[in-house]
């Protein structure tokens, strides 16, 4: 009995040493057949690897969008708490400019929760509301002093941690309290507020109308967005005429010689220079030599213009090249001068291609961050800029600034700002595709 097993095992080991299936006792395949099978297996493996590479890129894109949208979608809403504010003349005193508006809100909170007396507990209670609520009360009084002495029911913004908790969890789910830095007592208060219908979630308009802020619940992208818009405007005004002029001159008028070859190599290389180097250029030329204001949209726009100039030149030259020579010959045969040939015919026909390349390079400039860090557009700016010389940030820089802040509310804001940036970029790209499909001439 045992002997049979031993023999079988010996045969199996021998077969394994010869690289054969140890337990298959069917007659073997011929070497040629095995070779073919091996090649086919390799073929399948290779094909799967290729598909895997593509799939992996898709997974990365999916993960990226998922993490951005998953973190950011809640920032478009905010939580508000209904408080009965007593604008008593005693608290506000004689001068509404310097009055302690915190006290107004603290009184209202204590009215809701009269059992809170201990100092530590009071502190926790007041921490439920956002600091921006005081400013809101102050603005109300300054705008309308007749409110003094009245009682009003007001929806005021909750603190960021309460806001985050309310948006992401059911009000009776206490499993994740610690990650929002809320304690059990605060949780009980929140539950009571919810039971009394004193909590609501509304559209977060501050995110779209406010500037940067220390508190995540009152920070918005308006300042940086307008900064971006102004820089892009400066960039367009400078880069478009220069880029197209260069392309037209090089393609239509310049003679082919070593110098134009040099320029060609030059421009191709410029397109490969890391963007941060353009920031160094902007810093040393515009700010240190020409003395333009630091952190301004003007310097930002000029720097971005230098950055996309080579891209525009290359795209415009490619567009000009696609215009057939027959067009040029026909125009010349009708007696047009070289400038007329260029302006009335070639440039006109190449314009859709030039515009497409230009719009795409604007999209690139809009997403660029590092050169703007160099020229000081990373300052903490709470005001919305009014002119191109005001200090400002841009949307990608705002993303960078917020991303450095580990507070949960800012993680959310960062993701929401990214959603906005990606939406704008997508819109620009769709527009470029539309221009190409609608206007481009196929020769």
């Amino acid at each position: 009995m045992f002997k049979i097993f031993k023999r079988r095992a010996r045969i199996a080991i021998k077969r394994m040493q010869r690289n054969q299936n140890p337990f298959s006792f069917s007659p073997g395949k011929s070497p040629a057949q095995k070779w073919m099978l091996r090649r086919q297996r390799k073929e399948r493996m290779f094909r799967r690897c290729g598909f895997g590479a593509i799939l992996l890129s898709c997974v990365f894109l999916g993960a990226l969008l998922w993490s951005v949208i998953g973190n950011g979608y809640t920032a478009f809403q905010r939580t508000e708490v209904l408080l009965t504010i007593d604008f008593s003349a005693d608290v506000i005193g004689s001068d509404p400019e310097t009055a302690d508006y915190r006290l107004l809100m603290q009184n209202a909170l204590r009215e809701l929760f009269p059992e809170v007396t201990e100092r530590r507990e009071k502190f926790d209670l007041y921490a439920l509301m956002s600091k921006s609520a005081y400013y809101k009360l102050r603005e109300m009084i300054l705008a309308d002093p007749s409110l003094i002495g009245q009682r009003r029911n007001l929806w005021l913004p909750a603190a960021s941690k309460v806001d985050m908790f309310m948006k992401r969890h059911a009000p009776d789910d206490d499993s994740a309290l610690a990650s929002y830095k809320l304690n059990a007592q605060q949780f009980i208060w929140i539950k009571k507020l919810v039971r009394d219908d004193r909590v609501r979630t509304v559209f977060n308009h501050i995110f779209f109308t406010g500037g940067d802020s220390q508190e995540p619940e009152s920070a918005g992208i308006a300042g940086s967005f307008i900064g971006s818009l102004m820089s892009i405007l400066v960039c367009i005004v400078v880069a478009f005429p220069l880029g197209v002029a260069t392309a037209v001159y090089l393609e239509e008028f310049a003679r082919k010689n070593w110098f134009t070859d040099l320029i060609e190599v030059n421009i191709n290389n410029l397109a490969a220079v890391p963007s941060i180097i353009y920031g160094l250029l902007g810093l040393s030329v515009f700010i240190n030599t020409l003395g333009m204001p630091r952190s301004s949209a003007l310097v930002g726009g000029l720097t971005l213009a230098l950055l996309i100039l080579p891209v525009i030149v290359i795209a415009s030259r490619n567009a000009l090249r696609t215009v057939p020579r027959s067009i040029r010959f026909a125009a010349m045969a009708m007696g047009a001068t070289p400038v007329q040939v260029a302006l009335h015919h070639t440039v006109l026909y190449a314009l859709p291609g030039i515009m497409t390349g230009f719009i795409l390079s604007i999209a690139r400039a809009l997403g660029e961050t590092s050169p703007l860090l160099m020229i000081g557009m990373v300052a903490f700016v709470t005001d919305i800029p009014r002119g191109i010389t005001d200090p400002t940030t841009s949307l990608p820089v705002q993303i960078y600034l917020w991303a450095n802040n580990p507070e949960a509310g800012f993680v959310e804001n960062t993701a929401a700002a990214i959603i906005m940036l990606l939406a704008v970029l997508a819109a620009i790209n769709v527009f470029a595709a539309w221009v190409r499909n609608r206007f481009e001439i196929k020769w």
Partner: protein
Amino acid sequence: MFDRIIKALLLIGTVISILVTVLIVLSVFSETVRFFTHVSPFSFFFGTEWSPQIAIRSDQAGSSGRFGAIPIFTGTAMIALIAMLVAIPLGLLAAIYLSVYASPAVRNGFKPVLEILAGIPTVVYGYFAIVAFSPILREAGGLIGLSIASESALVAGAVMGIMITPFVMSLSEDVISAVPKSLIYGSLAMGATPSETVYKIMVPAAMPGIIGAVLLGISRAIGETMIVVMAAGMSANLTANPLEAVTTATVQIVTLLTGDHEFDSPKTLAAFALGFTLLILTLLLNFIAQSFVKKYRERYV
């Protein structure tokens, strides 16, 4: 008359565009020269200690700051290497799959994905690296008993690799699809399988172009700023361990130049020296890459 004005305007535009190049090189170069009057080039390129903090009083210890850039160069190289380890296989395999195997429907379905990846601003990749990728990698490292620093070369390099993948892919797809069909059909007619045709005929034939694509990828990797600023470290570590934080030339430029500094201190000038080194390096890589691609084009196109 009108013609002349137009022509003159166009010429002026061209001259300004050309001046930009000259300006870039001159401005960065002159600051670099000023830096080297403070710090000798030898100690910059071969020094192993980087601590540009300069003491307020001159009699304090270490008042002059140390500007040995070796840790920065090794850090840059390590992150670029990790990025290319991700980007080359992914980009090449994807390019080969799309140009050899994929049906037109599959190609049209997947190409936009890679174009979107290429169009996403780098600051978004940086955010992805610190918010999603780094925690996941640390968890995974913890499972197999590795402790990964929160700002590690691995995270920055891998995310940068993802960013460069579409770039390498589109460049190498161009060169692979430019391989003459006669070579491919010849190989297939001799009974080679498609994969054998790929690595015995197409890849060797397209090799100069692929090398060019890889070099351009490397040049992007060493010049990339936002991902490393956000996900790699700030302090210069001379280490070969990809799980630790390292710093890169671009990170140092950003840290040296953000905030208010007087413009003449060696600290700010050091940023220009690093920038100049970076500029020369990328131009060199670009030049070599272009000569490879040119050679390739002359051979087949």
